[in-house]
């Protein structure tokens, strides 16, 4: 579209006129006169609310995809921690199965299981689960299990246990969680799936018994969940 000089001049004059009006309106003296008025107060509050919601809405919409991508990267990173990369050639985020888990006290009625496949054959599975009864709240974990039911790796994703005592369940703080690698329901009896204080196989921490005890029990329940659905999960 091409505008002739006269129209442009007219538009410019109009813009200048509105700009001048806005400047006069925003003058502190004029605003001081308007401030006590109820209409003005209503308008200002509504204006700020509108501004805030538009700003937040636009930001949320424009970053939604990026944030989802970042969370996926985080998940992939955790999956890689518990399922060795050599075991699969598929996108584990796409190959999933949902199994009912209400009876296993892992704080979820349904558990999303990520399947690791190599040449179309399931080599390992991986899922998140929770010890709902940690010393100071839920302990969220992720576990990788090979197709025969032996643990490939367990990691704590988040927890609220006592810093300096219970936080030895984190791999960054201690090697304790690595003791589970290779363990399964077959090579340990049910009574061995406990901390040493309770007659089991796993160390407790000095000054903190509840955190490791509840972690061991949750991992045991996670293995049971896998066993109950093993045939269905490793079918292909």
């Amino acid at each position, binding site marked *: 579209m091409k505008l002739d000089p006269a129209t442009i001049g007219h538009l410019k004059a109009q813009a200048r006129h509105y700009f001048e009006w806005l400047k006069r309106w*925003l003058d*502190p003296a004029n*605003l*001081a006169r308007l*401030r*006590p008025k109820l209409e*003005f*107060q209503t308008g*200002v*509050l509504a204006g*700020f*609310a509108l501004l*805030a919601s538009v*700003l*937040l809405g636009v*930001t*949320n919409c424009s*970053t939604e995809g*990026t*944030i989802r991508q*970042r969370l996926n*990267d*985080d998940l992939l990173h955790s999956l890689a921690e518990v399922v060795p990369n050599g075991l699969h050639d598929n996108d584990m985020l796409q190959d999933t199965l949902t199994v009912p888990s209400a009876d296993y006290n892992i704080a979820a009625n349904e558990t999303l299981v990520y399947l690791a496949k190599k040449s179309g054959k399931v080599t390992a599975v991986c899922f998140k689960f929770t010890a709902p009864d940690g010393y100071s709240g839920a302990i969220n974990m992720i576990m990788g299990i090979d197709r025969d039911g032996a643990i490939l790796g367990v990691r704590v994703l988040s927890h609220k246990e*006592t*810093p*300096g*005592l219970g936080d030895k369940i984190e791999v960054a703080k201690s090697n304790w969680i690595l003791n589970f690698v290779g363990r399964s329901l077959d090579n340990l009896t049910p009574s061995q799936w406990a901390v040493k204080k309770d007659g089991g196989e796993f160390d407790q921490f000095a*000054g903190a018994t509840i955190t490791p005890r509840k972690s061991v029990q949750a991992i045991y329940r996670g293995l049971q969940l896998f066993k109950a659905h093993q045939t269905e999960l490793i079918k292909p």
Partner: protein
Amino acid sequence: MFLSTTYRKIAGDGLWNNNIVFGQNLALCPLLAVTGTATNGLGMGLATLVVITASNGLISVARHLIPSEIRIPIFVLLIAALVTLVDILMNAWAHELYKVLGLFIALIVTNCALLGRAEAFASKQPVKEALWDGLMMGLGFTLVLVALGAAREISSTGTLFANASLLLGESFRFLEVTIIPNYKGFLLMALPPGGFIMLAFLIVGKRLIDQKLTQIKVQRVVLNAAVTE
């Protein structure tokens, strides 16, 4: 000094005299919650510094528009929107930092110091002064957080700036030092009661220094008077 008296007074207030924690006794909730280690204190301090400066600036710009009858809801709205904005943007564009600081960002909303500065300073002052005030108040808050975090961390685990490389990047790994090797640990200091106890010591220390300074000032005045006589 290259700063004018006004700016120097604002800086002095923010950093020492009217410090958010020492002077106003505000922001104790986020303060005690995150100062288990010096690194966490630094993270919370930096996040607050950014938000308080931005909120001070924003409120100062809009100060003629805001009627005094409804100023509080507008301040709360602006601060909450700002904090949420920082939270979303950081999650998207600085995700690694967000994983460390994300916890603190949401806590900033509970920091009444922001509302306090908006009410007491930014709503009455020009933009430049308000920004400077936010910067100085935030800096003063950061210093207290780091000091308290360091004191608690040393007494509870014997280390200083543990995991600083997670927050600031690998090049800051030199900050991570073990002050007391083979320290058995003193759990109380890592827990909230330890925060209260250590904070009390810090406040007492600040008061003692202030007392000393006043004494020196009084002595000098007396001395000057004696000389002029």
